[in-house]
């Protein structure tokens, strides 16, 4: 519910939501709540909390390494849920658990949904769970009132957009490129037609992620989507400054503030879209 509420709040402000991703437990679960608070304070509207996995098949180097660091620091799904509870004591920011299927499956799907709701998480996104395989999860997330967020990609056909529309809640996550997660200097903005198609069939907000790494890119995305999703470049900051908290929080704050500013919608002229 927090996710829906947040999007409503934002839509009247004429801006896009800023969704930030961090891998829980990177560099350690002790630090994760403070990172989340810092993200929120700097303008993040929703947080995706990555559940680390040994085999992150859809991730580029930045998030692969973050996953490794998190696992090395002893992060488990139990620990991640505990961390959500700690965040929830001080913050109402919507939290989406973001991960691969096996750790969720091993935890037990019913128990996962129950515990996730109980600690105050708002939804789950499973990278390797297309709608065809989602029934065994959805029955539990629905029961607990959690959003189950699905991905769409530039390769998605009309049929698949319709299929996602039957299953999705919260928002839809449009992957901007055919590729793994990670920053990209050149960004392909030719998403107009797929966004138009998504909007035809899906009434939920649309967020765009994968490869968004600068305020300039965020601004372009904000011009076409309801949410801008940024992950790898935040994860890189954590990687770089993980041994110096003050520096880390300073840099995070500055970077996220810049992104948040960029999420204010403005009329984009067509020629601007082509500059990149």
């Amino acid at each position: 519910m927090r996710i829906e509420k947040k999007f409503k709040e934002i839509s009247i402000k004429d801006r896009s939501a800023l969704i930030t991703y961090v891998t829980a437990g990177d560099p350690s679960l002790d630090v994760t709540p403070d990172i989340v608070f810092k993200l929120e304070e700097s303008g993040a509207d929703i947080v995706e909390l990555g559940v680390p996995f040994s085999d992150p098949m859809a991730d580029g180097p930045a998030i692969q390494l973050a996953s490794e660091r998190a696992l090395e620091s002893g992060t488990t799904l139990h620990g991640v849920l505990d961390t959500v509870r700690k965040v929830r004591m001080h913050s109402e920011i919507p939290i989406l658990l973001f991960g691969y299927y096996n750790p969720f499956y091993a935890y037990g799907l019913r128990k996962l949904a129950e515990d996730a709701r109980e600690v105050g998480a708002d939804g789950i996104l499973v990278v390797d769970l297309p709608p065809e395989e989602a029934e065994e999860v959805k029955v539990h997330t629905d029961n607990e009132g959690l959003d189950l967020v699905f991905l769409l990609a530039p390769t998605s056909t009309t049929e698949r957009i319709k299929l996602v529309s039957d299953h999705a809640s919260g928002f839809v996550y449009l992957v901007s490129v055919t590729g793994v997660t990670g920053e990209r200097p050149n960004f392909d903005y030719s998403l107009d037609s797929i966004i138009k198609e998504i909007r035809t069939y899906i009434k939920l907000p649309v967020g765009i992620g994968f490869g968004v790494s600068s305020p300039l890119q965020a601004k372009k995305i904000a011009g076409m989507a309801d949410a801008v999703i940024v992950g790898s470049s935040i994860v890189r900051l954590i990687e770089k400054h993980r041994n110096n908290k003050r520096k880390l929080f300073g840099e995070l704050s500055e970077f996220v503030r810049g992104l948040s500013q960029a999420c204010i919608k403005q009329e984009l002229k067509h020629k601007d879209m082509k500059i990149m």
Partner: protein
Amino acid sequence: METKLKYPDEMGRFGKYGGRYVSETLMPALLELEEAYFETKDDPEFIEELDYYLSEYAGRPTPLYFAERMTRDLGGAKIYLKREDLAHTGAHKINNTLGQALLASRMRKGRVIAETGAGQHGVATATVAALLKMECEIFMGLEDTKRQAINVFRMKLLGAKVNEVNSGTKTLKDAMNEAMRDWITNVGNTFYMIGSVAGPHPYPMMVRDFQSIIGKEAKEQIMDKEGRLPDLLIACVGGGSNAMGLFYPFIEDKKVKMIGVEAAGYGLGTGKHAASITAGEVGVLHGSKTYILQNSDGQVTGTHSIAAGLDYPGVGPEHSLLNDSKRVTYTAVEDDEALEAFKFLSQIEGIIPALETAHGLAYSMKIAPKMSKDSIIIICLSGRGDKDIHSVADVLG
């Protein structure tokens, strides 16, 4: 429980196993592949073309060799070896890569990628890519490029680019992660040739179908030689493609027992092994639900086997079903036993088997002496062992 030839279902599931657990970016590609495969597999032109290459290029049918000396030495069941080591490139892997490459060229994909553990599938992929003039990139764990250096050289010689994978455990599972990442990125022009009966649907079905030539031939050959079906089939199981290839055509012959032999590494008790069915739990890895080796938190654990091709924490989903339905029995043998079998077959029959294959042989050495002299075992001799000479020399000194 009944096991009929009805799997997978339309969702790509083998009972509760299999499926398509992949990121959305790949779903359209898997659906396209499934459709292309269904359109192609029964096309007489495709069948003729594949048959042509299988016989003229790969050297099929491979012999079903009566291992008379081995039989005499073990003193029990008659042992036949299905000589996949004599197929072009030295292993059964070519059966599958020829099929997939011909399909890829019909789908007008100019670039093929593959993961490889022991390098056998990588070599078989690089070979067909050279044959059909396709661009080829192979992903191989750094650990494996060291212990299978000869195969790395072969792949390069064949014109493939070999990418050393330095992430995670630096073995087959990480090579597969990296191949998946490449496929996600280049899905438009790239055909991913999975080398085992693993991965998301339609791979487990498609690879099984292409490898079933092993069992079809073996069935005809044993009928010719013995006038009856065998009592027991034995094959090693990593991902499980040679085993599935041998077993599948016999599935409905209820009297034929089947044993899949996994890698017990240093011993199942040590935690350093690769016996996914024997010692694993149900989970989801590389696109399908199946038995995998994992910890209680759902993290996939590192594996160990002396045989790089078995050093994988998962197994094809159909094997998981065949295990649960008890149609196939799965067991595991340790590195040392496989090494013994490696030496044994080399010396008694003058055939140097792959270390993977040696696992199946090792189990047959245990069970054959306990069987009557008129019983028949067929072992899938899935590959030859030239590639393993260095690692065996390291261990045996």
